[in-house]
């Protein structure tokens, strides 16, 4: 599988590390219900088709937000997680 890094271009999947789905971390801890925290930890959309995913390109260590098709493994778009 070929993935894309906005800095390094198309690269082999072995250079990347999957980090999970984009989620807002619920906090502060004292105000977060057990259920909301458990959802943050364990509940994922895991869609078939278009999915938003966080990846790390381990070659340049940039954290990326990818939109991929999980059925075809095609990368639809990719951007750095950091503001320009």
């Amino acid at each position: 599988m070929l993935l894309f890094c906005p800095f390094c271009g198309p690269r082999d999947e072995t250079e990347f590390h999957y980090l999970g789905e984009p989620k807002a971390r619920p906090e502060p801890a004292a105000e977060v219900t057990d259920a909301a925290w458990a959802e943050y930890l364990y509940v994922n959309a895991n869609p078939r088709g278009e999915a938003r995913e966080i990846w790390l390109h381990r070659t340049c260590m940039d954290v990326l937000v990818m939109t991929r098709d999980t059925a075809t493994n095609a990368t639809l778009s990719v951007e750095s997680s950091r503001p320009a």
Partner: protein
Amino acid sequence: MSGFRLPTGGAIDRGRPLAFTFDGAPYLGAAGDSIASALLANGVRIVGRSFKHHRPRGVWGAWTEDPNAIVDVTRGGLTTPNLRAAVESLENDLAVRSVNAWPSAADDRSAVIDSFARFMPSGFYYKTFVWPRWETFEPMVRAMAGLGRLDPRNRPPADNPHVNAHCDMLVVGAGAAGLAAANAAARAGRTVILVDDHADIGGQLAHRGGTIDGGDWRAFADGVRAAVVAAGGRVMTSTTAFGVYDGNLVCAWERRAQLPDALWRIWPKRIVAAAGAIERPLVVPDNDRPGVMSADAALVYLRRHAVLVGRRIAVATNNDSAYAAAEALAEAGAAVEIFDSRADVPATTLKVTPSVVVEAVEGRSGVTAVKAGGRTHAADVLLLSGGWTPTVHLFMQARGKLRWDERVAALVPAAAIEGLRVAGAANGAFTLDAALREGHAAGGGEGPAPNAPPGLYRVTPVWPAPDAPGRRWIDFQSDVTLKDVALAAREGYASVEHLKRYTTLGMATDQGKTSSVNGLAALAAVAGRGIEEIGTTTYRPPFTPVPMTVVGGRRRGQLMNPLKRLPLEADHRADGAQMREYGGWLRPAWYGPDDSDLAIQREAKRARETVALFDGSSLGKIEVIGPDADKLVDFHSYNRLSTLGVGKIRYGFMLSEAGTVFDDGVTLRLAPDRFLVSCSSGHADAVAMRLEVWRQDRFDPRRVVVHDATAHWATLTLSGPRARDLVAALDLGVALDDAALPHMAFATGRFAGAPLRVARVSFTGDRSYEMSVPASRARSLRERIVAALPAFGGGLMGSEALMILRAEKGYVVVGKDTDGATMPHDLGVLGPRAQRKDEYIGKRSLFLPAAEDPDRKQLVGLAVEPGEQPLPTGAHVVEDAGQGRRSLGYVTSSYRSPTLERPIALGLVAGGAARIGQTLAVYHLGAVRRARIVSPVAFDPEGGRLHGGRADA
């Protein structure tokens, strides 16, 4: 004897004879022969035995589709199993053996099995699994099953390169369509990779010939080759594109002369799949007799290898393509007679009987006669042409769909796939002019396509009725007959995927290249449905067997999962270190050639008595730098680190977001804006990654950076009562009195012109000094220490002794003394959970109901009587529960302590802290022992030795 070599013609070199043996008998072939062509030239008819029934089999095909001629080849004393004789080039001094036969293919003692064929119907293996007892049959079935014999001495070197390549267009197959596609693309300036699994280009043209653009096809092919190279592409022969993967990655296996095979990973913008088509058999009775062969294959053997496969050849066909083969064979001197199932037959000079099918084939060990039209015709070879099956494997691997094209009696691609086009015979275009037009279009060609005289291909399939008499083979290699398919369908296996698994149709090493359509037609007939409706089984890579050595490439042995190496490895080895892997690092386990237990015990004891040198270079050393460094390390760590003073050290945990202990380690504050996060050797990469990910996610990346300096520094640790004396003797210019350098503080200095850091941290419970220098200075520092050791009665210590020392102190190794559920309070570290108000990784999870469960597994010590053996690591602490036992936890670390002169152990036990003082049962492999739950700290519970040593007195 039937086949023989012609005195002239063919692409062989008669001046270079090659000697080889087959099943022990000597033969001669010629350069340019395949093993199969050489066997045919020598009149060898039986080349193997079928998998299930041990039926004698001859060569059917001339290339990768041949299901029968599977051989073990011994070359230079080393045997490679399961090579395909039709594909493998002949070499001098090869010893070739048939598989699945003993002592030889011609005289196979298991052949009697065929007499019991009615006892081995479809689903035989499934049925014997359940009735009467699989164990009874298993030894017999296993002994007879399988093909070639593995040669344990044949361990090829890991020297197969993997090559990545990019191109505008990949063209698979250099036949007419592939050549036309490559030609169009290259002349438009595109980079083209043109691959073909044969040693030369041309495909069917190479044995059928053809006229393109008014000249011999070879002139056209030479022009294509030149155009591809001129446009920056390459033509790769002896290269099999065997699989297409996500993103249209195509993997290809290249066989190279005098060089190891290579695996190509080709990333094309577009793929043209022009892999041609394969002739299929007619499903006539006894169609598996040796001497029954593909008509096209007979033409290949004639034109490429100058082998005439028989002297009296019967040809049975349902289509036009066999006529060219029949005429060529007749011209070469054979007596040829054609039996065509159609009434309307092409014009030919040969004798043709229309509207007949073969009714029987005689000759148990080789064709002697063919019965057709109610009459017996003498023949030594029967050629069958049941039509052509497009090679759509790449298209189907890429999830294409097929439709049945009645016009050519073939399953052809139904709709285009993004980035992949199928052209030529693979698309059902079975004439030269049509293949050229399709290839030209697929290559993006403008203007007229390369021109060839108009061709004609007509076929009228004859599918036998499911209850047709006689034994009619569909899959030669898996031994599946028409009756087997009919039986499976009657037993309810009507789906093609079920049929495949139940009958093993298409499951052999040829993956059904000659059998799939005949099998589908049979199933369709039984089910009363159309072939298209039945559908095909899933196509998966590889197209043809690819050696595992090629797939594995160089990633074998040490390169499979490369170990990290210490800068001082050579020095350790010179001192007799036994190196072992710990967390991905190769580290000294103990020193000395003697019994490991003795050496380890001696090293651990000496470390408590005097001083020991330990190489701690593999510990993670990750710098967090910048004005917001304190914010990042605080969030990342369970223990607050921003309150740490410069020059000081703090031990703590890193948690997962689930609140479990991810790793532990000490952090040094090098400067107000600079921390050094240390972690376990095996976790350095992961900790550096976590820090980096959270840095970008949560912090201003301009105000904090993460730098993994693990490999830059070597760390040598001296531990023991004499440690300070020894460090003092090294004369490092660092003040060592405890006021200047107390426990959990560090000092900096210079060593050999480079920075030096001396840290007082301890993983042994004894006074310890960790001296870190750049890796380039490691040897100088070690040499100075080793020279000083004897004066203090000290010695070298490996990882195993260190493990004893830390276990004596109850210090955990994360991942060994913790499991995937262990939280910091399970290890007795409660402070941050109770006190920290700010956010940190895993915080909220520490307050979930599960975190409060009183039955959580907690770290404890386990004590047994001094004379006993240590408890087995992994043994379960159990309590009685009704009729059985319930596990309360398990032993995580267990050693014999040379200092305490008794076994010690750590474990995780449910509610363990409250059980201290209890004696519990410990169960392991059927044996039950008793152990007392004690504090994890077995040695020096007051901790006085951290500050001990003679100089303190």
